[in-house]
């Protein structure tokens, strides 16, 4: 099957997670054409991962109530006119301007393609925030997200004995996914203190869906016999060429490890995640303003009502507009979809969808404020601990570079190469800045965006359709 190098649609959506699916469905329902570009193999995003075609669960898996919405969206997508381009890595983007269409250039396998459209909805999601610790480069240390992809996306166990550690609401789904897969969870460690969970409570109580979700996880944990321990972290991981043991222990009020509490447990996989970081590069490339809000994961695209951004006909929904979870993404996707249709069809937008997205966003903010990463956890990073995995740069090199070259992200990059590798600094940037700023809570530098937005083959750039 040969596919056109250049395709056109009224609206281009980036990301087939909850926000992108919701936006696309809303747009398609009003008769506009919409194409969704998604890097995954199947729609659903990270949260509503589906097994590959030809795979099946023997009995329906136990899922949290929020996944009901995912099934509905996926089902609706199948019956809709929304066209989804999977395996599509967007590497450059241009916003629509005047009568000129916008353009999204993407790599799909070995093909170099482009989507031209009158409006762009950005829903690229987020990634796990990693906090380095000694040994975290050993095979077997994976992100919380990676563990979920293995279990829910491929029916594969990350290991047989797991330690789950980090911070924030995503630890619970990770633990339950592991338990459901038959993995023994030897420890589940939340670095935030117990009072953080209590602070999160009002945000949970404001949303019926979140409350149901919380009950589900409480029940799952209780059944599995795993308990979430607060103020605890993985201090180090050890092993010969792979994870064999984890050193775990208690953190003080600031999040600093208390060495005397350290103990070693046998484990073959460590799943770690300290909340999420919004993926904003494509928004920046299109000229969208980014803003800093720690509770929303740091830098995110500034979205107004209906997901509108400062760039005409470019919209940002879900995690790119600040971490908020799938309920927020769906509400914002619908709202943005509504405004896109209203604009392209030259009518007024319905306000109830906007009101709904405002309300769920406010509730999410209230809950996530409770889970800021305790600064002290960065003191787990020893001089010799690798911070930038692409370029093998350790923490001492980061500190030295910061002293000599300046303490901005770019200065440190120039001084020690941190962030120069193929992840383009996505993995290390938050920790590089935390280490260099030594616990200061100032806003970090806005990451600089260059093309390609993600690495793509030379041939993709060479074969890029000229539009």
């Amino acid at each position, binding site marked *: 099957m040969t596919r056109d190098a250049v395709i056109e649609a009224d609206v281009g959506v980036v990301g087939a997670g909850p926000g992108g699916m919701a936006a696309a469905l809303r747009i398609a329902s009003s008769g506009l054409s919409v194409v969704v570009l998604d890097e995954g193999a199947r729609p659903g995003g990270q949260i509503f991962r589906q097994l590959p075609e030809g795979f099946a669960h023997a009995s329906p898996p136990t899922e949290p109530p929020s996944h009901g919405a995912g099934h509905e969206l996926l089902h609706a997508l199948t019956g809709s006119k929304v066209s989804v381009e999977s395996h599509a890595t967007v590497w450059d983007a241009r916003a629509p301007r005047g009568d000129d269409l916008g353009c999204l250039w993407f790599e799909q396998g070995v093909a170099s393609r482009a989507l031209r459209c009158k409006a762009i909805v950005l829903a690229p999601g987020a990634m796990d925030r990693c906090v380095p610790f000694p040994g975290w480069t050993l095979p077997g240390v994976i992100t919380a997200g990676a563990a979920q992809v293995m279990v829910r996306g491929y029916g594969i166990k990350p290991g047989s004995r797991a330690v789950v550690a980090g911070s924030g609401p995503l630890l619970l789904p990770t633990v339950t996914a592991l338990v459901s897969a038959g993995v023994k969870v030897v420890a589940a460690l939340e670095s935030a203190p117990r009072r953080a969970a209590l602070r999160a409570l009002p945000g949970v109580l404001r949303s019926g869906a979140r409350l149901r979700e919380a009950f589900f996880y409480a029940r799952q944990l209780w059944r599995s016999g795993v308990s979430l321990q607060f103020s605890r972290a993985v201090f180090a991981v050890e092993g010969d060429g792979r994870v064999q043991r984890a050193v775990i222990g208690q953190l003080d009020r600031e999040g600093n490890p208390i060495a005397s509490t350290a103990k070693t447990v046998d484990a073959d996989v460590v799943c770690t995640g300290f909340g999420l970081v919004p993926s904003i590069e494509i928004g920046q490339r299109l000229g969208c303003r980014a803003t800093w809000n720690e509770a929303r994961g740091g830098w995110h695209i500034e979205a107004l009502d209906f997901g509108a951004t400062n760039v005409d006909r470019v919209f940002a929904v879900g995690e790119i507009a600040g971490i908020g979870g799938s309920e927020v993404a769906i509400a914002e996707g619908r709202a943005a979809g509504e405004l896109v249709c209203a604009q392209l069809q030259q009518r007024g937008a319905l306000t109830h969808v906007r009101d709904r997205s405002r309300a769920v966003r406010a509730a999410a903010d209230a809950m996530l404020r409770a889970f800021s990463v305790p600064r002290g956890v960065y003191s787990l990073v020893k001089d010799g601990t690798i911070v930038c995995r692409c370029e093998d740069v350790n923490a001492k090199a980061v500190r030295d570079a910061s002293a000599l*070259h*300046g303490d*901005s992200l770019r200065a440190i990059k120039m001084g020690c190469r941190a962030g120069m590798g193929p992840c383009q600094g996505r993995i290390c940037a938050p920790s590089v800045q935390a280490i260099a700023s030594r616990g200061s809570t100032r806003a970090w530098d806005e990451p600089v965006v260059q093309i390609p937005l993600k*690495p793509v*083959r030379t041939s993709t750039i060479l074969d890029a359709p000229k539009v």
Partner: protein
Amino acid sequence: MTESADVVVVGGGILGCSVALHVARALPKARILVLDRGPIAGATSGRCMGHLMVTPDTKEEYAFSQTSVRMWAGLQEEIGGFDYNPTGALYLADAPEDLELLPVLQKQFSDCGDTAAILDQKQLREIEPGLAHDLPGALFYQGDGVVLPMTACSAMLRLGQRHNARLETRPGTEVTGFDGIGSRMTAVRTKHGTITTGNVVIACGVWSPAVAKLAGIAALPIVPRAGNLAITAHHSTPIQTQLLEVSYIRFAHGAAKVDPWKTDEDQGGHAVNMQPQSAGGCLIGSTRQFRGFDTTLNRELLHRSLLRAQRYAPGLLGLPIVRTWVGLRPYSVDKHPFVGPWPQTDGLWICSGHEGLGISLSMISGQLIAAQMTGTPCAVDPTSWLPRRIL
């Protein structure tokens, strides 16, 4: 806030860092400050390639560049840490008509008392199996090398600090003016305060004319010449040697007649330059354009660079490009850098205008400044590079 220093270097790029290193060596007790508006190595030195290139166009240029490249080997021995790799350089012929350029270049090297070898198709493939099989030949010059310029800046500064513990960097410090008494430099004013000093070295690359103007030099003839670059991911270099199209010499140094005040994108030419990196990536350059301070990447030019590059190294097609960017070379209108004292102001020095050879020539340039400042012998004759020529 007022403080004092013996020497203030304005500009924390490769030239400023080399000046700081050499002055620190010569004056181990002096207080030396390196100021930069942004990060150290944050501008051109962080956006360029790291080719240590010996240029045999004239005997004088040969001595200048060859001495500098040799000094780089010394820097590697003394401190290292900047991915130094003496790969040599291959000047590649694309088509049979380029073959005639090889003996021309070879003769330039031999006229300077050096040697370079002409390789036929078969010999070329033995040296670089990743090259296109139809390339007719190349010239191999052994004396060139490769460094990572940003960490080379760090290495120069750290080595300087070993010689002189009073060498400090001040990133994020913008110079706003200079004070003088009569024709004597007395202080540097910055956004954060005044630094009294008797010696100021302007080493700000393309920003040198603006800073020089603050010091009373009306028109230092340096203009930005933009180059776009791309880099592949680690584990992804198709080549192991520094590569240049032999036609590069037509544009970069000698014959091309260019008017820097025009902004024609094609002017000044376009020839590929590929550089293997220690971590296994490959840098791909490079275009030459006069278009002011604009550092927006031009996709059309990127396309042309990559197209040329894959013609030489077809394996590039499947390798991931991680990043692309634009750097600004400080192009000196008479094609010679400015290295030395400014005769109209005591204590004012210039070290700038090295176009695409700033990395190569940084070591010797720093040495010349330090030697002239302290009255010690210069490693090469500094006459041709003295700024007084523009008066």
